[in-house]
């Protein structure tokens, strides 16, 4: 009798194991058009359809929240539960404004990244960015991809002279569990465009990891990708092509990665031309101008928010400053770089990621 029971037990265990092994993960893809002016697409393998549905809702809530909090061109939506957003903060100079903890934390992160990059990442230069963006992509008289006349270019420079880059553009304070921000100067206009997308993507990444999801990809626009492992490939590596910034539709290389964030800053989507050089929308806080050192800077690393900000900052650094940054921070940030230079050569600063140039 005990022998039979033992056999029954073994059969039961074995059966359970086979059953659980047979349980196939469910593939799901969620697409969002509504947040951060970006097409966001998430593909993942969940344990069940209902699990995937819950994750979809929670992921949408994350992007929706950061979209609303960091929006710098319109007021909070009617009946919003949030205290302020970047647009409403920008209307009030020299005033302590109470904000939500989530917005406070992203602004804290912006300060950390400003210090890390020695001022090359600066969210307070929105007024300068506006001057450039208006000439690049204004609907009525924007010069997207076209040569700008000398008078218009001079007009930009004249506008920029009057706008100051402020040393301490905003101050954060926390008292009694309440969070405040104060803009310190009338030339300050906050713009989280180079951080919010990556920041929210990292929050989603951490959420998926916490939920035990292993096989997934998050793409927020064509510039920012965060990935887990690739399910239907033996190596479980994603193959990511790098777009050639000078030959539309072509790629110049491929990287093989998993459990990473990848971010590219480039000059090839929105720009105008002046005397043959591309003037794009990544504005250097050091010169108030778009820099022409590189066509694209692609970063591979750990944190999508940090990478978003760093790719912007590195884009404005000349080669010397760029190299110094890599020397000082590559190890601590586990940061890798593939750079497409203005002379169409490619420079790499890699640790263990495999890069194949075509």
């Amino acid at each position, binding site marked *: 009798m005990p022998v039979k029971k033992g056999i029954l037990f073994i059969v039961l265990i074995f059966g359970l194991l086979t059953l659980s092994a047979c349980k196939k993960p469910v593939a799901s893809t969620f*697409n969002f058009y509504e947040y951060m002016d970006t097409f966001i697409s998430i593909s993942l393998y969940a344990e069940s359809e209902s699990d995937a549905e819950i994750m979809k809702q929670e992921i949408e809530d994350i992007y929706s929240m950061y979209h609303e909090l960091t929006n710098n061109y319109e007021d909070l939506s009617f009946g919003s539960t949030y205290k302020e957003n970047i647009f409403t903060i920008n209307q009030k100079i020299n005033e302590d404004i109470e904000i939500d903890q989530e917005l406070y934390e992203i602004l804290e992160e912006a300060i950390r990244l400003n210090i890390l990059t020695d001022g090359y990442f600066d969210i307070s230069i929105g007024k300068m960015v506006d001057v450039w963006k208006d000439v690049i992509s204004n609907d009525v008289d924007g010069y997207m991809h076209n040569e700008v006349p000398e008078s218009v270019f001079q007009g930009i420079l004249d506008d920029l002279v009057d706008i100051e880059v402020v040393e301490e553009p905003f101050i954060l304070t926390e008292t009694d569990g309440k969070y405040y921000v104060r803009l310190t100067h009338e030339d300050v206009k906050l713009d989280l465009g180079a951080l919010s997308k990556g920041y929210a993507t990292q929050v989603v990444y951490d959420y998926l990891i916490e939920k035990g999801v292993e096989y997934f990809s998050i793409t927020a626009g064509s510039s920012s990708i965060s990935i887990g492992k690739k399910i239907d490939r033996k190596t479980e590596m994603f193959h990511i*092509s790098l777009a050639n910034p000078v030959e539309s539709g072509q790629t110049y290389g491929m990287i093989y990665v998993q459990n990473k964030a990848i971010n590219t800053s480039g000059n090839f989507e929105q720009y105008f031309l002046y005397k043959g050089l591309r003037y794009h929308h990544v504005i250097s806080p050091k010169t108030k101008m778009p820099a022409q050192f590189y066509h694209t800077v692609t970063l591979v690393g750990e944190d999508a928010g940090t990478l978003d900000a760093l790719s912007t900052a590195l884009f404005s650094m000349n080669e010397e400053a760029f190299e110094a940054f890599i020397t000082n921070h590559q190890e601590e940030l586990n940061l890798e770089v593939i750079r497409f230079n203005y002379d169409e050569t490619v420079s790499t600063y890699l640790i263990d990621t495999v890069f194949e140039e075509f």
Partner: protein
Amino acid sequence: MKSMNNQKKRDLILIGLLFILLGGTFVLFNMLAFKDDAALAHVYYGNSTDPIVSIDFTKQTVEKFYDQEVPATFTSTFPVIDENLQTITLLGDYTINGVRQIVVIQYNFERRSVQIIQEESPNNICSREGESTGWPLICLPNRIRVEFVTNQGDFTV
């Protein structure tokens, strides 16, 4: 002596053939493996992960998979494929005075390219992207996008 020569000749021919075979395979492999041109472009509408229309540049065909749900005020169905003008017209989600606006996509088989030639939105980002042979065209407020299928990576950054 003569048979020796014949044998040498045969060897040479064999080696020659091998070289041609190897070279041919190499050329063919290069052509197939490093062909950058996309063979397909898919048009997507809304949150769907299935294409609504596919453009096959190799077969030079355009295939519609399903119709959009369209308000009763519109008399025709969407998408509309016009093979003479080489256009695909969809109904976007961007509205003016409550009326949904059309998005017109033009394709070109010879150039293996796609371009958004008409669309209503605040900044007209997607129609100003120009002609694409690989870069995705995304019309955010209209919730319509065109993506190329390439034999390269899983994603492009």
